[in-house]
Structures are given as structure tokens and as C-alpha cells.
């Protein structure tokens, strides 16, 4: 990642220190520490229920840690707090089922990304400024959905829906993109096209991508770091540079195949 593209003056844009999280009973996360470099593509993999989605929700403050500290830039994430609102506007979030509004059009879904920068009265009337509409149309075209703005969101294919969700996030002019399994359940070709959109946006704007993956090989292909979560703990974090992989806990070097084998067991 070239140094000039860093959007928020901090080299480590997201930091987590010994974070615990709970939904009431039991612990979803048990002491996770992580440090995510600005502009990087950070992947999170692990079994179902291991705590991947929870980790993402801590990064935008949709969930508060039970214990430990989370920092995004200079802020403590808290989606309900007024102070963090400004930062939130530039944190794109694509939840596990995408969170599209199904009974409205593709264009309106994309425009949701512009809501935080619009005035209360204007947006309460449901109107969007022409400039925003034009931008939404441009963004839609850039994700390969040009001319599909008028379609209803529920009448789209799985791949198209993911493109809409990415377009909505890009509409925010994000410095960080949190994406939860957005390429799972897609055929490998479509999954790579979608990942290509994220890479392309990263190249263009220098945004930091934190992506949960189901498929380890996709994570290894697109991420510069991969964290493996197991039962609420980070059991492995590796740096990916071509075919050489560094295990940061032991400092040892290994190959892609070794990591794939490891995370299948994790």
C-alpha cells in the first residue's frame, strides 16, 4: 500500500486491545487484539459462530465491548453516541445479509449511503438533491449496474444485490469498509468480480477494507493480512505477500497450503 493514500493520518486506523464481547450470556469474543493498517485489506476467517460478525460490529460501535478497548482513528466507536456520528458517516458497513431495503428501488438503496450528509428536513421528505442522484447513478455504473437503478431491490440476483450493497457503501465516500461475508455463496467467478470492485475502490480512494470471508482461499488472494478467529479468540494472524506467508505469533514463514490446512481445522 503506498503511503500517500492514507485517508485518516493514522497508520494504524483500527486498533483493538484485549476485547471481550457478549450478547448477554456467554462470550462471543474472548480477548481479541488486532491492529489494522490504513489502506490495507484485512480479512477475518473462521468457523460459523466463532465471532467474526461480532468483531465487525465492534468496529463501528453497533456493539460495545464488554471489556477492552477499540479505537477507530482517534475515536472510540459508539454508533448511538453523537460524537462518533461524524466518523460513522465514512465507515461503510455491509451486514451479513446485506441489509438492502427490498421494497424500494436499487437507486434509492444506493442513495441511502448519502443520507448522513443530507439535511434532516430534505431527507425526511424523501427527496434527494440532483447531484446525489447523479452520483448514485455513476456509482451504480461503476459496479456494473448501469441502467438498473429503477429495478426493485427484491428482484435482483445474489450477485447484483451485493453490487448494490457495495454501491451504497461507496456512496458514503468511505475511509473504511466493513463487509461481512459479501462474497459467500457466489460462484467463484462472480465472487472474484465483486472482490475486484472492492480492490478497485481501494486503489482509487485508499480505503481500508475489513472483510469477513467464508472462503479462506479468497481471503488469501485479496487480503494483505488474514486473522483466523476460533471460539472468540484470534488464533492466528498472518501477513500475505505473494506466496510467502508470515505467522505473526511465531514469526515463522509458511506457505499458502499450510495456512489453508490450519484454518480448516480452526
Amino acid at each position: 500500500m503506498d503511503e500517500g493514500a492514507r485517508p485518516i493520518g493514522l497508520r494504524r486506523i483500527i486498533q483493538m486491545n484485549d476485547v471481550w464481547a457478549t450478547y448477554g450470556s456467554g462470550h462471543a469474543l474472548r480477548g481479541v487484539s488486532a491492529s489494522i493498517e490504513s489502506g490495507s485489506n484485512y480479512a477475518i476467517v473462521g468457523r460459523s459462530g466463532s465471532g467474526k460478525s461480532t468483531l465487525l460490529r465492534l468496529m463501528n460501535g453497533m456493539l460495545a465491548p464488554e471489556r477492552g478497548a477499540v479505537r477507530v482513528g482517534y475515536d472510540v466507536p459508539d454508533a448511538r453516541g453523537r460524537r462518533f456520528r461524524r466518523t460513522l458517516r465514512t465507515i461503510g458497513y455491509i451486514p451479513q445479509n446485506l441489509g438492502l431495503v427490498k421494497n424500494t428501488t436499487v437507486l434509492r438503496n444506493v442513495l441511502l449511503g448519502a443520507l448522513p450528509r443530507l439535511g434532516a428536513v430534505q431527507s425526511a421528505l424523501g427527496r434527494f438533491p440532483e447531484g446525489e442522484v447523479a452520483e448514485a447513478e455513476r456509482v451504480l455504473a461503476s459496479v456494473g449496474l448501469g441502467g438498473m437503478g429503477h429495478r426493485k431491490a427484491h428482484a435482483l440476483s445474489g450477485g447484483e444485490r451485493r453490487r448494490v450493497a457495495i454501491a451504497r457503501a461507496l456512496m458514503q465516500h468511505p475511509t473504511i469498509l466493513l463487509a461481512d461475508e459479501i462474497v459467500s455463496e457466489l460462484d467463484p467467478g462472480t465472487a472474484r468480480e465483486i472482490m475486484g470492485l472492492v480492490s478497485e475502490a481501494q486503489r482509487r480512494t485508499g480505503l481500508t477494507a475489513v472483510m469477513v470471508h467464508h472462503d479462506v482461499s479468497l481471503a488469501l488472494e485479496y487480503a494483505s493480512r488474514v486473522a483466523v478467529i476460533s471460539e472468540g479468540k484470534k488464533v492466528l494472524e498472518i501477513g500475505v505477500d505473494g506466496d510467502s506467508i508470515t505467522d505473526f505469533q511465531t514469526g515463522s514463514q509458511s506457505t499458502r497450503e499450510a495456512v489453508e490446512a490450519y484454518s480448516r481445522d480452526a
Partner: protein
Amino acid sequence: MTPSGNLVAGIIVALVVAASVNLGANPGLFIGGLPNLWIVAEEMIQVDPGLVPDALLAMAETIQMAFVGTMVGVAIALPMSLLAARNIAPAYVHAPVRALLAAVRTFPSILWAILFVIMVGIGPFAGILAIIMYTVGFVAKLQYEVIEAIDPEPMDAVLAIGASRLQLVRHVVIPESASHLLGQLLYMLDYNIRQTSILGLVGAGGIGFYVITYLQFFEYGKAAVFMLVVLASVLAIDWASTRIRDRYIVRPYSGP
């Protein structure tokens, strides 16, 4: 049936018999009263066709009352349903609003009509107010249940980017709950026309007023004209609203 099932059934039968004796509900009276029905029927057959225009006018008034009451009621119910939805409003708002709505629903529309006749006097206005109250209590409940069933993910996705509650309502809650609204409106209008037809019994306007007046003077033939007009109108409205529903109501999409 199990022995305990027999016991329960036996107890229920015994209670029904005991309560009937207690109330003086004698089946013999029912049988003996059947000829009276014949007399009524005979009088009713002497329908006076000259009254049909009057009956149609009265029905038109009834439908107007129901229409105004339903529309105003729904207009009040919608914002109330937002305030009552647990996933939108905080507890200190939704708890009192829900209690208020529950209290409003406790009264049948005929009781509201009596209350408003006392307040604003005899006439259609009292009936309209009664219909509004009933509609608010009923539609707000239906609608807050719809809102509470909305998929939480789009709401999360919008709140997670720093959008305001008002924006959430306008851009997520309304589109996701609107598809049920037309159906509820039609249902309510249909139901309210039937209700309004009887509000006249307590003086709150509409066609029921004529019916009760004629019945009081034993003019069954005249009452019958008005009752037949109610019947025909209700059937027609039922047919029309089914047609509209089938044509315009899109089945809400479910799943990711």
C-alpha cells in the same frame, strides 16, 4: 377421549346447563316463538319500493361517514404506530402509547358512539368520531406489529452509517411496511361501513337510524327496505375490495 378429557367435557356441559337454567333460557320458548318470526317475515315481504331512493341516500351518508372516519383514523394511526413500535421508539415512548391504544381498543365502536352523541349531539358527526377512535386503536396495532416484524438488517445498515431516526423511518420503515397498508385500509373501510350501519341505533347518524326508528314503530316492511340496501351494499363493497386487493397488493418479499 382420556378420562380427564371426559371429566372436562362433563364439567363444561354441566356449566352450560346450569347457566342456562339460571338465565331462564328455555329452548321451548325458541320453538314456540318461531311463528312470530313468520309474522315478521310476512310483514317484511310487504316491501315499500318507494322508500328505495331514501334508503340509498341513507346508505350514501353511511358510506361517507365510514370513509371520512377511516381515512382520518388511519392518518392518526400511522404516526401512533411508529411511536408504539418497540424497534423504533424508546420504552418511555412506546409503553405509554401502547397502553393508550389498548385502552382505546377496549371500547367497541357503539360505546364510542354513545359517548360522542352525549358530547356533540345526535347526528353523523358523533358516528364519524366513533369510527375514528375505533380505527386508530385497531390500525395502529396492526401497523406496529407490521413494523416490529420488519427485517432488522436494513435498519441496522442505515443506523450503522450515522443516519438519523427520522431518516430511518422515511427510507427504511415506510417502504418496508407500506405494502401492508393498502390491504389494511381496504379491510378497515369495509369493516367500518358495516359498523357505521348500526351506529344509527344510538343516534350517531347513518342508515341504522332509519332502521331503528321503523322497528320501534313496528314498520317491518319499511325497515326491511333499508336492511336490504345495507346487505346489498356490503356485498358489493366486499366484492370490490377483494378485486382491488387481488390486483394491487403485492405479496411482500421475504428472505435475504
